[in-house]
């Protein structure tokens, strides 16, 4: 009797703990918003929710959000899977560097990317000017369009797809590919008919994250959409924020509800797709690549390098250039070049270093904490009945889909007073931002892990179970090493996303608790774009250094954990 009971209660305990974590982290902010949105319903036809629902602009923005996010997701899928496939499965050279460079664009604030592209293809483009192809001043800018927005959204979220898919590909048994090839399938057919469908789990997970993160993105549609009069939900919400009236919060909450509904629809769709791709893969490939590119190698390499030039080198160069000039708009020459901006930001009242320290702590802490709880959570979720699983996943997905400001508002509403029972005041401390990050990025860490788990050959765990390993033991000894690449990919994504995060911390920071994103944004907003660029360059350099340092640890970590190590 006793053992069975203990077992049951241990599992239940695990379950309860995790549920509490999910609820606390994910559901509560969303519910608080719901409360806010529905709070004024008593006003009848004048209630903000009705107003919002009746406004034509709402539905237009909703449609445009869908449109740009969907398109952005497709672009992210194309870019991310191109890199994932080529780098994971072929014998292309310089893999480490390709991966490394592909991850870095996440570090460049989207506004910066947008601006550098605008400059690059605008009338003042140094590049186009030098070849005499610069469009005349004031000619229409093609990036100011839905497609422009989608393009940048896609580039921004491509690494999400890349990492999710890569972990999925790493566990692809090579026999499956070989069986297709010996059947006479050409390489293209093998990709399309075997590899793609089998790694669908990772692809869907990555695509979903790309979609959701595009849905909640503010910077890019603000930069590119407003000039074109193209408003999506996050920009519409920001616009509501700029109003003064009392109903502002309720209206914002109502709009966020729509995003929430969209996200949930996305989750439902994704689950429907996932259901058909849930198969444990028997066997575990320890092999780096299956495909010899042969004479295609040069072409493929050139393609990847071109993509990298566009998404990394161009914006990065623009960033460096704008950090070296004395003021915005001054052309960079030997005479004008100056390091003043760097002197200024490094020497400035310690704010830069404080922000660096804060952001590193926040991002690193969030990554570590989320990695620690993602595995048991994903593990437990996988064993939940389908319906509960969908619900829990939806709850987790919400905070990431909501625009950052909205989540921040929810956090303020929740935490401005000390937390009841424990009487801890989070408001005005870094702790609040930390909690908000945990809620927001949980899904980013969880998704790849869940996809990896779904692909795991169940008999591997069963063997350990029969050997006498309890749930925790199995988790640590068997499951963890097997999904370690996914787990680290998740942690890495969280870190990269959080270290530059702006929209959440913009509302939650306080003096002494600024983050890098806030610092850069404030500088930019105060018209000090040059300083902002200098800080951005420093951040990119710092993160790149950290990423490289991680490579030194790679030999001590399970295989495949550091994406840019073979």
């Amino acid at each position, binding site marked *: 009797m006793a053992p069975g009971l203990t077992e049951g209660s241990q599992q239940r305990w695990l379950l309860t703990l995790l549920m509490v974590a999910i609820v606390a982290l994910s559901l509560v902010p969303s519910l608080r918003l719901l409360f*806010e949105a529905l709070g004024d319903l008593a006003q009848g036809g004048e209630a903000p929710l009705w107003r919002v629902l009746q406004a034509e*602009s709402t539905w237009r923005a909703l449609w445009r959000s869908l449109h740009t996010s969907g398109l952005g997701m497709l672009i992210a899928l194309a870019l991310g899977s191109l890199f994932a496939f080529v780098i994971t499965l072929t014998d292309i050279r310089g893999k480490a560097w390709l991966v490394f460079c592909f991850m870095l664009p996440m570090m460049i604030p989207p506004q910066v990317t947008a*601006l550098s592209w*605008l*400059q690059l293809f*605008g*009338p*003042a483009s140094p590049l186009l000017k030098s070849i005499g192809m610069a469009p005349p*001043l*004031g*000619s*229409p800018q093609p990036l*100011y369009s839905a497609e422009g927005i989608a393009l940048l959204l896609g580039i921004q979220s491509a690494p999400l797809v890349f990492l999710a898919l890569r972990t999925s590909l790493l566990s692809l048994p090579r026999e499956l590919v070989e069986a297709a090839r010996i059947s006479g399938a050409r390489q293209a057919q093998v990709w399309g008919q075997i590899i793609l469908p089998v790694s669908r789990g990772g692809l869907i997970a990555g695509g979903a994250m790309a979609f959701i993160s595009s849905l909640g993105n503010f910077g890019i549609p*603000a*930069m590119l959409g*407003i*000039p*074109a*009069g193209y*408003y999506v939900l996050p920009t*519409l919400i*920001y*616009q509501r*924020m*700029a*109003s*003064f*009236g*009392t109903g*502002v*919060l309720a209206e*914002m909450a109502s709009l966020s509800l729509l995003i929430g509904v969209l996200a949930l629809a996305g989750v439902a769709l994704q689950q429907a797709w996932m259901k058909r791709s849930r198969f444990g893969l028997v066997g575990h490939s320890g092999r780096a690549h299956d495909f010899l590119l042969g004479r295609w190698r040069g072409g493929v390499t050139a393609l990847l390098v071109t993509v990298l030039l566009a998404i990394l080198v161009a914006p990065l160069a623009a960033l460096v250039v704008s950090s070296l*000039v*004395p*003021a*915005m*708009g*001054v052309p960079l020459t030997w005479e*004008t070049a100056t390091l003043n901006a760097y002197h200024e930001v490094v020497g*400035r*009242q310690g*704010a830069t270093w404080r922000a660096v320290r804060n952001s590193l702590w926040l991002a690193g802490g969030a990554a570590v904490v989320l990695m620690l709880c993602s595995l048991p959570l994903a593990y437990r979720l996988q064993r939940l009945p389908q319906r509960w699983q969908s619900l829990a996943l939806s709850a987790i997905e919400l905070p990431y889909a909501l625009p950052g*400001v909205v989540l921040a*508002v929810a956090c*303020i*509403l929740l935490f*401005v*007073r000390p937390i009841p029972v424990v009487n801890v005041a989070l408001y005005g401390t870094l702790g609040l931002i930390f909690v908000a990050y945990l809620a927001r990025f949980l899904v980013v860490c969880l998704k790849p892990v869940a996809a990896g788990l779904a692909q795991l050959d169940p008999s591997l765990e069963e063997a350990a179970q029969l050997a006498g390993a309890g749930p925790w033991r199995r988790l640590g000894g068997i499951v963890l090493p097997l999904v370690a690449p996914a787990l680290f990919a998740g942690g890495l994504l969280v870190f990269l996303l959080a270290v530059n995060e702006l929209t959440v911390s*913009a*509302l939650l*920071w*306080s*003096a002494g608790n600024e983050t890098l994103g806030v610092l850069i944004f*404030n*500088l*930019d*907003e*105060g*018209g000090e*774009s040059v300083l902002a660029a200098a800080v951005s360059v420093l951040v990119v350099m710092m993160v790149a250094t950290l990423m490289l340092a991680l490579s030194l640890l790679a030999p001590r970590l399970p295989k495949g954990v550091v994406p840019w190590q073979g």
Partner: protein
Amino acid sequence: NEKLVLYTSQPNSDAQQTVDAFRAAHPDVEVEWVRDGTTQLMTRLRSELSAGVSNPDVLLIADSMTMESLKREGHLQAYLSPEREAYAAELYDPEGYYYGTKLITTGIVYNTGAERQPHSWQELIQPEYAGQVTMPSPLYSGAALIHMAAIEAHPGLGEGYYEALQANRTEAQGGNGGVFNAVAAGSKPYGIVVDFLPIREAAKGSPVAFVFPEEGVSAVTEPVAIMQGARNLEAAQKFVDFVLSREGQELVSEQGYLPAHPEVTPPEGFPARDEIALMPLDTQSALAREAELKQRFGDLFGG
């Protein structure tokens, strides 16, 4: 304990300077300040109020329209500062709920590489400027909203002006920073923007120039006000007095803004105070028309 909580939308370094100067004058008061964009700051304030907490003692933000609406909702408290005597009556609330501290005017900026040098608002709607002008959106920026209200109320420009801008393919950016960047980077040669950005950056070498158009400029005043539930009322009043004092106004000028105090010399790059024609603006009626203005803008420029 003498702790004063200040919410301000001044840029980081300006806020720091203001606080430092105040602390130099009143070493016994401890200041805790939060700086953010007006929009963010207001959202934050709204959230706090909605949760039933009033965090700041003093606000130093945005424009009179925001202050007016806070006043109507009863979130501000009146204080008749002895310093107000020096100021023009339209710069502060007669009951003492808020006081303008500086003038951030909206005028025209152009890239020095551009063909033309506009001198009036009228010029921007001429065909030569078709597709060449960018401006901040009133849907996002308070200053732009006030600007729109002022233009609409101007007899010479009036209601048709924004339609004409739209017909001339003028583009809207989110905020003033975006407009300035676009002009400085050359992607648009002309822009409608707040004064201090181009003036300050031009001094550093940026290829832009700022123009105070003939018809006059609109202005936001970055008012200071005391919150209703201020915990440290005495310090809050000291702060209001300080920013309105001559010393405080000198600092404003040093920071590169047009001071509200008529006797303080404007910073370099600005014309003399009395050369600047301000388009008159009635805050009350502007506030009443807010929704309508935004609606119009949204219809014209999308949103």
